[in-house]
């Protein structure tokens, strides 16, 4: 293997020996501080490969089940189930409403998603999915134990019969 070492040359000489590239020419306005610069040649990088376009990538970090309890105006009161235990939360109502979560007790799933954008920026977002449509609702009646029934009867006796 041999390496050829060229004699030292001034930078200006090298530039003179090369023809101007067909690169972009940027002309500056003639402000005082740049009046010496008439034009600037930007050369395309030689042998540089265009950067690979990255596809946005999504990764699910966590998933919770939950249900809607109450409408509190701008917020919804919801319950999340974490390790088999209910945790009550206030959540901004808009993302849930947009996902179609609008009815009392309607179950939903929320995914905590890590999204890596094309530019490589990583953000965390949430994706709400209803586990049932409002129209899927059915009536889940309470177990009317003897105790409950006798209390209900006491209420009917005192306040009158219920409209059924």
């Amino acid at each position, binding site marked *: 293997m041999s390496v050829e070492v060229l004699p030292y040359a001034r930078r200006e000489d090298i530039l003179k020996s090369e023809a101007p590239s067909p690169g972009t020419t940027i002309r500056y306005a003639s402000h005082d501080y740049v009046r010496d610069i008439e034009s600037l040649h930007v050369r395309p990088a030689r042998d540089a490969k265009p950067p690979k376009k990255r596809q946005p990538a999504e990764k699910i970090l966590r998933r*919770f*089940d*939950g*249900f*809607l*309890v*109450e*409408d*509190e*105006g*701008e*917020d919804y*009161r919801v*319950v*999340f*189930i*974490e390790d088999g235990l*209910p*945790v*009550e*939360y*206030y*959540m*901004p109502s808009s*993302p849930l409403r947009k996902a179609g979560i*609008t*009815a*009392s*007790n*309607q*179950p939903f799933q929320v995914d*905590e998603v890590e999204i890596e954008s094309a530019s490589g920026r990583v953000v*965390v977002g*949430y994706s709400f999915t209803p*586990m*049932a*449509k*409002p*129209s*899927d*609702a*059915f*009536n*889940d*009646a*309470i177990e*009317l134990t003897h105790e*409950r029934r006798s*209390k*209900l009867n*006491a*209420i*009917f006796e*005192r*306040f*009158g*019969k*219920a*409209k*059924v």
Partner: protein
Amino acid sequence: MAKLRFDFFESANGETIIVEFPDGGVGIVDAHPSAEKTRPQILDLVGKRKVHFVCLTHPHADHGVDLIPILRNHGAVHEFWHTNSDISSFVYHCLTERPNYPSPVREFVNRLADGWADFLLDLYSSVRELPERKLHSNVQPIEIAGVRIWILGPEEQQAKQFVETYLKRASGVGKLLPSPNLLSAILGIEYGGCLAVLGSDALKAGWNHALEVHKAHGLPRAVVLKVPHHGAANALALEKGRKNYFDLCSKQRAVGILFAGDSKHPNKKVFDELRTKTLLLCLSNGQKGAQGPANPLNIKMPGARSVRRSYVCQPQITVELSSDGSFKVDGIHCEECLARSVC
């Protein structure tokens, strides 16, 4: 000198107000479960005094659980006050018609609904033979021992509509049930030319009506305001030019009593407004943050926060109105909060 005394209690689970009349008898406006023991047991607190009335401002557990032992065991209660136009139908539908869905959370939905249903059953079945009084703004003012109690809300029609809507939605499918806060009673208690307004959890619509009733009867401006719904944003209209509950209050000397509820109550804007417009007394400090972590699931979404009970800084505040129109407040010295300039 004869006095009308209000004892306000908070124990991070709701609110209790004991009104002591000049004749020594009391009225109980809501009573919450005192789990943290910052309030004496409700039966000890009332003692053997005559109970002119037990008032459930609206059917929520943080206002009603401790009314149950009074109704069951006190023995000297004269009346039960409430705002529900059809208790039987309301309870029956809450019990028998609860919307649910085929899902892994079905059991949790039922558990929550069971708790709510058992509260209603326990409470209303304890009323037994007691005379009831349905509160709405068409009711004539009630006189007790020289004290006049005005019902500023709810509007009769609004209260009826709530129950009708509730029943209709409960038996339909896929609807959002209306909030029982819509049933909240707004009481104006007048003594010695002074007015104290107890706002329970009344929402904006309720206050619009209360303002009309207040004006129609030519009532004095309130010197005491029990801040409604723990300082929630949906109780106070803050838009410019809109009337709100401050229009009921004396501009010079109103005292606002705030029962902070949980991590959402009081709202920051409401809290700031209260600090400007009243001499604000807190029974807990919602601004300081609630008990426990505010976001245990670490949900990274603006506005997401867990429902945590507020930190209690001042479990009791007492206000006395005298027959000559003066009033006195006790229990505002909370060292911790004064140091932080919060209360």
